[in-house]
């Protein structure tokens, strides 16, 4: 029945003419029969005709009413409105351009941020049936988040929890070097239990996952990207042997395109069985230790089991584990997270907060854009009052006018939405190019997906209604008698501030807030450049190798590194060279709590100290000043362990005593302190000085090998690219299978380390720029409107002898009054906002005098310009013309 209605409706739409003539004919027949009937009753023809005509009324009205009985009439009138709107808009391309640009910028900003939200929170990982795949974490000490699982924890959950059809474990990141015909390359992958591919239900484009008997077999699943890049997408790769860190692995499959494991930001490129980990990692974690937490867990819910039911079971399981192993599992609990998400704690919670702040900012920008466009349309409706008046007088209903006006604004907004999508495609690719200074591979790409397009579409609709409703409402309700006379029919007497004034004040104050934030971040960048990082910020080249994943023993590694240092030191342009396990300002690092031997242990947690392994000449190469004692030399691996600490370490643990000669213990190892050096920024630029302990590579490499290889730090003069080629050559002479990675100058490294203020500064800068652009256009359009409305008044003033300057001042004063009010409103808001962002500002106080005086002055200058242009037009008003013209 609905189908029939649809079919006949569509037929009627396309065959309106035939349908109309049919109604005409039927109506005519009706009237003829009626007249005949009356004549039959003895009424004469003339009179019968009159009666029937009066009875039937206008044929057009009947036709219209028949026509409105079907749904197609609504479609038709919408279509007519649409055509009318398109015709109208195409006659004012300037307006269309301004509105589409304003709204497009606002929407583009929103789409960009939403594409991050979509990537971080909404997009499921490309696994089979993502809704039933979860990842598990351990909580400790009540509900503190979050630990990885230990080996026995994993087995307990796998064997005892009934809620899951499968539980897989994986070791997050395993470094390896892939060799082949080309230069060896460092890649990162994951070590997984053999059921990993069954639990995740990956749809493998090539080959298969692991079989249950392959836990200790050297087989490998390649990531799609690695397969394409390194093996040219070889379709016959399955079954071929490849060399991974010097071992031969057989390729059994290729993971789906875009699959990057279950974590949000890591970028693993291969998967190998967990039992084979000893081949790839020098000191793999103990599978049977209950205290070593190192495994990530993916668990597939049984069909029909909800997350809440599974959690209830896990809570019971946690209690029984705590009873069975009180020494290790007491106070532990489980936390379940949808696969592809992270627990909302720590850095991830901070990132979400940042994202939320950004979302608010972009919504503010869109609000500015909407206010601006609403203003422009308001000014425009003023010039359409006569048209509206005439249409109303001719019988259009107010709701019809409203509908047509809204259609106009929604169309404009959809145009803005299209521009917004284009802008966000561009901006997401720019964002994806940002690099984090992290030692592990991260995938931070964002792109515009269908969710973003849908969101943009809905946002455009909302924006269109938002900025269109006010002006449309007003336009559809003119005071009719005045509109037809060509007078201003909107002006209600006795209002001091119009809606327009309020909107423009809001715009200027919002862009003041954004610009102040931008200013603060720019100042913060400047401040960050002035932060004393404590080590040389230029003229150092870094390159890393990881001999231990190639099966080098500790002794051979020490030999290799010292031979490498000896060779590099002789290269031209090199003044000193050292090796270390970790480059400072890489956002992370190893740390342990230290206590002083022979002193009562302090209450509470011992202060965490950063741990660096270094070679001789490290302090000299890095330019870290020696304060007391000696530096580390080529220490004997078998002698008692020695260490150099920084001043902060000495302050924290020894107050005013000299630390030299004292012994400290941390992480189960005791060191004798032989020297003190200056403080450095260890993890991030903004941090307070941390205690740091430097120990010898020679003495510690056997018991505590580096996680991410060893970096060669080379102090040089000259061209770094020539030098890096020379060093590469030296490395390949020593061992051609070693992959060289993280080749960077320290300047490049520091630039990466500044990414947060740079990112924030860029974002706020872009938004602030858009904001001020929009506000300027807004102020300009309000002032132009004001001038056009006051043309007659200005003409009279000029006719009565007002000079140009006076007229100009009249207009400029009006605009500047608004600007000053806006700044008075915006400044406290900006101060409040800056206090909120204080935690990510470096070297700048939130109430930064420079920012909060410069920005308002700039804003005043721009506002002056926006008022000056219309004021010039006002001063050129020809009194003769204005006074003669009556509309």
């Amino acid at each position, binding site marked *: 029945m609905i189908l029939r*209605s649809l079919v006949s409706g569509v037929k009627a739409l396309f065959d309106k003419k035939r349908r109309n003539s049919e109604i005409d004919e039927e109506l005519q*027949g009706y009237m003829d*029969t009626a007249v005949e*009937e009356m004549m039959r009753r003895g009424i004469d023809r003339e009179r019968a005709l009159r009666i029937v005509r009066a*009875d039937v*009324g206008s044929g057009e009205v009947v036709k219209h009413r*028949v026509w409105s*009985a*079907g749904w197609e009439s609504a479609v038709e009138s919408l279509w007519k409105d649409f055509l009318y709107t398109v015709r109208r808009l195409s006659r004012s391309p300037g307006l269309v351009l301004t509105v589409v640009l304003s709204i497009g910028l606002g929407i583009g900003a929103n789409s960009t941020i939403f594409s991050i939200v979509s990537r971080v929170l909404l997009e499921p990982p490309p696994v089979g049936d993502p809704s039933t795949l979860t990842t598990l974490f351990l909580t400790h000490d009540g509900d503190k988040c979050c630990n990885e699982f230990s080996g026995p924890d994993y087995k307990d959950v796998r064997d005892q929890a009934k809620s899951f059809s499968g539980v897989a474990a994986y070791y997050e990141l395993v470094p390896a070097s892939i060799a082949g015909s080309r230069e060896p390359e460092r890649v990162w992958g994951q070590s997984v239990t053999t059921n990993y591919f069954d639990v995740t239900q990956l749809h493998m484009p090539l080959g298969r996952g692991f079989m249950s008997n392959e836990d200790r077999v050297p087989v490998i699943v390649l990531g799609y990207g690695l397969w394409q890049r390194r093996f040219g997408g070889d379709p016959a790769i399955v079954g071929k042997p490849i060399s991974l860190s010097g071992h031969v692995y057989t390729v059994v499959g290729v993971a789906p395109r875009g699959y990057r494991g279950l974590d949000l930001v890591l970028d693993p490129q291969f998967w190998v069985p967990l039992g084979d980990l000893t081949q790839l990692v020098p000191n793999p974690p103990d599978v049977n230790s209950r205290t070593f937490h190192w495994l990530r867990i993916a668990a597939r819910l049984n069909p029909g089991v909800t997350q809440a039911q599974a959690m209830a079971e896990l809570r019971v399981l946690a209690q029984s584990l705590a009873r069975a192993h009180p020494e290790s599992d007491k106070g532990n609990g489980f936390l379940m997270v949808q696969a592809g998400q992270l627990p909302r704690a720590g850095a991830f919670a901070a990132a979400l907060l940042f994202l939320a702040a950004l979302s608010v900012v972009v919504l503010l920008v869109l609000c500015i854009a909407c206010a601006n466009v609403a203003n422009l349309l308001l000014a425009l409706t003023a010039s359409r009052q006569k048209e509206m008046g005439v249409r109303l007088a001719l019988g259009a209903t107010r709701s019809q006018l409203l509908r047509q006006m809204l259609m106009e604004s929604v169309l404009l907004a959809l145009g803005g939405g299209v521009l917004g999508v284009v802008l966000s495609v561009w901006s997401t690719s720019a964002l994806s190019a940002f690099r984090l200074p992290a030692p592990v591979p991260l995938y931070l790409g964002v792109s515009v997906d269908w969710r973003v397009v849908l969101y943009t579409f809905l946002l455009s609709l909302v924006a269109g209604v938002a900025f269109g409703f006010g002006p449309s409402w007003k336009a559809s309700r003119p005071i009719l008698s005045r509109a037809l006379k060509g007078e201003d029919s909107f002006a209600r007497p006795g209002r001091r501030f119009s809606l327009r004034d309020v909107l423009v004040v809001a715009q200027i104050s919002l862009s003041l807030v954004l610009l102040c934030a931008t200013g603060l971040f720019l100042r913060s960048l400047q401040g960050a450049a002035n932060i004393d990082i404590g080590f040389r910020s230029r003229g150092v080249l870094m390159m890393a190798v990881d001999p231990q994943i190639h099966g080098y023993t500790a002794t051979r590694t020490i030999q290799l590194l010292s031979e490498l240092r000896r060779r590099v030191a002789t290269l031209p342009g090199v003044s000193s060279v050292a090796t270390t396990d970790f480059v400072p300002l890489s956002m992370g690092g190893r740390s342990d709590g230290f206590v002083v031997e022979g002193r009562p242990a302090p209450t509470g947690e011992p202060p965490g100290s950063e741990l660096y392994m270094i070679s001789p000449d490290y302090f000299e190469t890095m330019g870290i000043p020696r304060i007391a004692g000696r530096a580390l030399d080529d220490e004997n691996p078998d002698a008692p362990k020695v260490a150099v600490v920084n001043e902060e370490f000495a302050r924290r643990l020894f107050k005013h005593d000299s630390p030299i000669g004292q012994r400290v213990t941390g992480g189960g190892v005791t060191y004798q302190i032989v020297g003190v050096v200056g403080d450095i920024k260890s993890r991030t630029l903004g941090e307070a000085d941390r205690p740091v302990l430097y120990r010898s590579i020679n003495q510690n490499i056997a018991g505590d090998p580096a996680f991410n290889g060893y970096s060669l730090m080379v102090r040089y003069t000259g061209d770094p690219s020539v030098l890096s080629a020379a060093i590469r050559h030296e490395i390949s002479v020593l061992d051609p299978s070693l992959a060289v990675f993280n080749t960077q100058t320290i300047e490049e490294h520091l630039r990466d380390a500044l990414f947060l203020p740079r990112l924030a500064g860029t974002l706020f800068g872009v938004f602030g720029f858009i904001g001020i652009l929009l506000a300027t256009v807004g102020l300009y359009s309000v002032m132009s409107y004001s001038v056009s409305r006051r043309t007659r008044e200005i003409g009279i003033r000029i006719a009565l002898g007002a000079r140009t300057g006076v007229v100009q001042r009249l207009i400029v004063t009006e605009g500047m009054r608004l600007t000053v009010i806006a700044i008075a409103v915006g400044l406290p808001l900006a101060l409040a906002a800056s206090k909120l962002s204080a935690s990510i500002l470096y070297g700048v106080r939130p109430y930064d005098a420079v920012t909060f005086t410069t920005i308002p002055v700039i804003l005043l200058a721009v506002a002056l310009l926006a008022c000056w242009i219309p004021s010039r037009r006002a001063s050129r008003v020809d009194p003769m013309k204005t006074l003669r013209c009556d509309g």
Partner: protein
Amino acid sequence: MGDKSSDLVQGTLEMLVLKTLAAGPMHGYGITLRIEQMSEGVFVVNPGSLFPALSRMERAGSIKAEWRATENNRRAKYYLLTDQGREALRSETETWGRQIIAINRILEA
């Protein structure tokens, strides 16, 4: 002459049309005439209400239309009751009957 059909309860016009057509196919004026006669002049349906109603009912499938020759050899659009229309008439009459009884009960209480 006022449009007395506006006095009709919303939706009853369609029921009356169905009832009229139950007697056999009829053209527009025929329906008007019949309703006027049967109601003894109380309900006068004018084309401004009748034709939209017919169009709605045709769209809903309770009646269908055919062009036929009238007794005076003129072309006219005749409306016929479909099976669906017959069923609609039955259920609407039933509902109407119940409502009338209920309303009477209230008015007489």
